[in-house]
């Protein structure tokens, strides 16, 4: 059941012209944003934040790592909509499907580097309630990442802090693209669309 209706293209009208790049990248406009569109300023704000977090400089960590971290974060919070989306985005950024499926066992999987493990461990601890991050976690992070990069890692964990609450609360209907990816890639790890299964029209 949809808890607040995602707006259609028609209802959104010209106000989504600025989202063309997003729509081109994904092939669709996510339902999460179609719900945000009830307050257009909000839709603008979240897209600005997303762009800033993905903005790359010479010092930046890779987009693939950012999405892997977003995925670990969403797994810890339990948002299946976000797990499917971040997994698909990681794949789109060049991360192997097998690696994405192994995130739930990153500690023991040999598909991850030590630097990646440290980042994923951090994501898991930072997305737990209560927060489980320790000074030791930061000491380990600082062996592999600069302060700038740690801010980047935490910014995607924060962004998924927004999205995990947003999508798990609205039970946002999952679109065909990420649903297909997750069923194929993550089905073996116990992922299901759950309450995000879209109503059949």
């Amino acid at each position, binding site marked *: 059941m949809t808890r607040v209706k995602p707006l259609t293209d028609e209802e959104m009208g010209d106000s989504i012209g600025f989202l063309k790049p997003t729509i081109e990248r994904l092939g669709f406009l996510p339902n999460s944003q179609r719900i945000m569109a009830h307050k257009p300023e909000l839709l603008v704000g*979240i897209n600005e934040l997303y762009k800033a977090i993905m903005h790359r400089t010479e010092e930046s960590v890779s987009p693939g790592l950012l999405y892997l971290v977003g995925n670990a974060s969403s797994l810890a919070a339990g948002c299946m909509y976000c797990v499917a989306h971040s997994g698909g985005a990681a794949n789109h950024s060049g991360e192997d499907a097998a690696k994405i499926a192994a995130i739930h066992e990153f500690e023991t999987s040999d598909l991850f580097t030590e630097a990646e493990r440290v980042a994923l461990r951090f994501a898991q601890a930072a997305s737990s309630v209560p927060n489980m991050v320790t000074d030791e976690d930061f000491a380990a992070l600082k062996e592999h990442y600069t302060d700038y990069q740690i801010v980047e890692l935490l910014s995607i964990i924060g962004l998924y802090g927004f999205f995990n609450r947003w999508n798990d609360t609205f039970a946002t209907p999952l679109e065909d693209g990420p649903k297909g990816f997750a069923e194929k890639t993550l089905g073996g790890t116990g992922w299901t669309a759950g309450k995000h299964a879209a109503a059949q029209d």
Partner: protein
Amino acid sequence: MSRVRMLNDQELEPLNDIIAPSKERLGFVPNSQRIMAHKPELVAAYNELGKAVMLQTEGSIPGDLKYMIANAASLAAGCLYCQAHTGGASNMRGVDGDKVAAIYEFETSDLFSDAEKSALRFAQAAAAVPNMTTDADFDDLRKHFTDYQIVEIVSVISMFGFLNRWNDTLATPLEEEPIEFGEKHLSGNGWNVGKHVTTEAAE
């Protein structure tokens, strides 16, 4: 002590215009943003989102209720930094200190209207891990709020999804004003500055 270095006033100067709306909302530059400022695009966009979430239109829920919702979400997530900030911000918008202190017992307190209770109950459920919101919570919300207002309520809860993770992870040092508010009004509920102790005080 902050786990990532905070930028000082001199380093922040090029970002002054960007940070101005937050400074106006809170009365000071929050340390959370002194850390975000390592990546200037991030602190700029964060402020844009904050403005959008807090933007008051004709159809909006009351501004003070936004901060009470943020406080209830931060209580559920356990972020002491955010509890002090949102408590202080509610107070600045006219919510009595006693009422802010009563948010943790809103269900049985007579200081809250039914609409406020519905929103605070929702905030608590939406900020829990795993997420505890139900269809029944939505039915109850709809008795008091429009779809537009429900989107606003969830946007506040979600923005604090960002901030609760940010500040609890960084152990962001609390500033003087929210410490004062927390000690005066929230310590009876067990609130303390915890790991958000300022460097100066620790030295």
